[in-house]
């Protein structure tokens, strides 16, 4: 038996096996996509020099985007969360709170904000926004902790840059993971995800300058 997906792709026998054993097609697709997105993030860090918030955050945000109904709602929620994180830092600064209570207050405020955004969306007849499922929203809310940690360590500006990098990688990841070509590839030839291992070994041994470093050190190269 061979599974045929919504765009008429014939899945490989192993993928069909997963699906007929009861694993939902969407889940199989996303799990097979995960190593590719992870490798993409590693590539961006090691070769291009785009850092983002580590590997986990952009990965999970990518999947949150995939799970929200359309990219624009995902981006809207992402930006609201980051914006609130920045605003609250100034609001909470004079109180000099300990770390965890401070994060808890942030989460509270962000939750209220998100609820507001969703209601507003519903009110504007943007039903797509209001019907976003809870898990991607939770993922986005927890983004605020990552943001605060970086804010404390490296300051507002650096945190904002990293947030934007995360957003960039996640958007790119979203398009890659929803490209029909790649979906067809992982469904028909699921073993290609094993290729990410040698690719990552090469990335892990890569000692050349990152593309961003050519820019960072341009004055030195000029003076040599």
């Amino acid at each position, binding site marked *: 038996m061979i599974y045929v997906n919504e765009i008429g792709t014939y899945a490989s026998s192993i993928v069909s096996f997963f699906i007929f054993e009861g694993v939902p097609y969407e889940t199989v697709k996303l799990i097979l996509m995960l190593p590719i997105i992870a490798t993409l993030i590693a590539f961006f860090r090691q070769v291009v020099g785009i850092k983002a918030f580590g590997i986990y955050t952009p990965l999970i945000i990518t999947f949150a985007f995939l799970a929200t109904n359309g990219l624009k709602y995902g981006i809207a929620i992402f930006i609201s969360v980051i914006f609130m994180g920045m605003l609250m830092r100034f609001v909470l600064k004079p109180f000099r709170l*300990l770390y965890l209570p401070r994060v808890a207050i942030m989460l509270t405020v962000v939750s209220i904000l998100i609820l507001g955004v969703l209601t507003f969306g519903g009110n504007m007849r943007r039903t797509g926004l209001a019907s976003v499922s809870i898990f991607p929203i939770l993922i986005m809310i927890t983004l605020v902790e990552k943001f605060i940690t970086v804010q404390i*360590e490296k300051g507002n500006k650096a945190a904002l840059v990293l947030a934007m990098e995360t957003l960039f990688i996640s958007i790119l990841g979203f398009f890659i993971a929803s490209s029909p070509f790649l979906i067809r590839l992982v469904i028909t030839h699921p073993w290609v995800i094993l290729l990410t291992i040698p690719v990552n070994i090469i990335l892990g041994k890569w000692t050349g300058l990152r593309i961003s470093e050519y820019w960072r050190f341009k004055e030195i190269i000029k003076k040599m």
Partner: protein
Amino acid sequence: MFSYIKKSRKILGMNSRNLEYIRAYNLKENRVLADDKLLSKRVLKKNGITVPDLIAKIKNHDELEKFDWQSLPASFALKPNRGFGGEGIIVVYGKKKERDDAWIKADGSLITIEDLKTHIRNILDGSFSLAGTPDIAFFEERLRLLKLFKPYAYKGIPDIRVIVFNKVPVMAMMRIPTRESQGKANLQQGAIGVGIDLASGITTTAVLGKGKLIDYVPGTRMLLSGIRIPFWNDILDLSVRAQIISGLGYLGTDIAIDKENGPVIVELNARPGLSIQIANLAGLKERLERVENIKIKTPKRGISLGMNLFGGEVEEEVEEISGRKVIGTVEKVRLIGKEEKEIEVEAKIDTGAGLTSIDTTLARELGFGKTIDEFQKQEFPADISTEEARMLDSKEKQRLLKEIPDIVDTAIIRSSHGTSYRPMVKIAFIMNDVKITAKASIIDRSNLKFPIIIGKKNLGKFLIDVNKIINLSK
């Protein structure tokens, strides 16, 4: 394009640093030492390396409650043990008068015991530590800013980062806190990084924050190149010895110079940043590769190797670039007076004085006897207020300039002895092969060590190096 890539191979990037240097030369067990400030302090001290004195430490909330605040001195620095990037550090400069529960911070604001307690609770909870793990807070002595650095640094204290690899100092920079970095000597936060020539300890090029090349301290006319870092050999020696003690093959040492105790190691860094390359406008990778496989027996050998390989003829270079000669605080000068009369004396270089002044007797020898006699005939009062002197000057100046021979100007000079009204004559002097024409005020300096001081107005063509000692036999 091809040469661009070839040149870029001399630069150390993040990937290479992590994989080929930190991973390869800094074992985890040794990295632990660098990340634990109290531990590295103890180990360094035991091995005879000067570190800032520890005043007290607070390990947990219980100790915090029992802490005797009155045992703290008037000034101290409070730090998290595993802090990074200068975060979480509070420095106080003195106790508030008539209050035993408050100190004064760098910006003049007050900090009370309650404030300190909240801050320490944050430290204990790990707000400033890597990965947010619970931490220890400690108090250490406050380092006092060297006078030389005062005009450059905003609030905080500059420190010197030296990268040592395989017992060889390979690159160094001075980090100067700015308004933008809020007194922290951290480039990421907007401090200034100034490259240092390894052989001489003289600063070269400078970068503001992450990548903006600058010549002056922003908002001032303080030139950043040509500063000679005092105790340079000691700084390199401390760094190399610290590297050997720490067991870290690739180490960044942070050294501050205390006004009284000289250079001390503030921190060891097992993952030193890459911006030092921009401050020096030189690639680190090329340097590391050159010393990687050399067997070096003693710190001394390592230092002289580093100086020879990576130091330039910077003194001449500074003079060449700036077009200015480097002089010390005392210099021999050849004075040229009236009718080309030449006298050689030792002059004090005094940037605290605006104008050059010479001693009466010396002025007479230079041929200004008549000028002095005529001026003294006026019988102006010797000790007057500045206000009176101004009145006197506006009334008498024109007449004096007309009547007294060789007088070119008058000067009202305020000093610790009070205000004096003085005649000025035109002299020339040759210092370090540069001829300067100057207006000098004449005053009795017979009870002072130097018969002439050279003031700011006539020092524009020189860079002053406080460590340079003149060779009197020359």
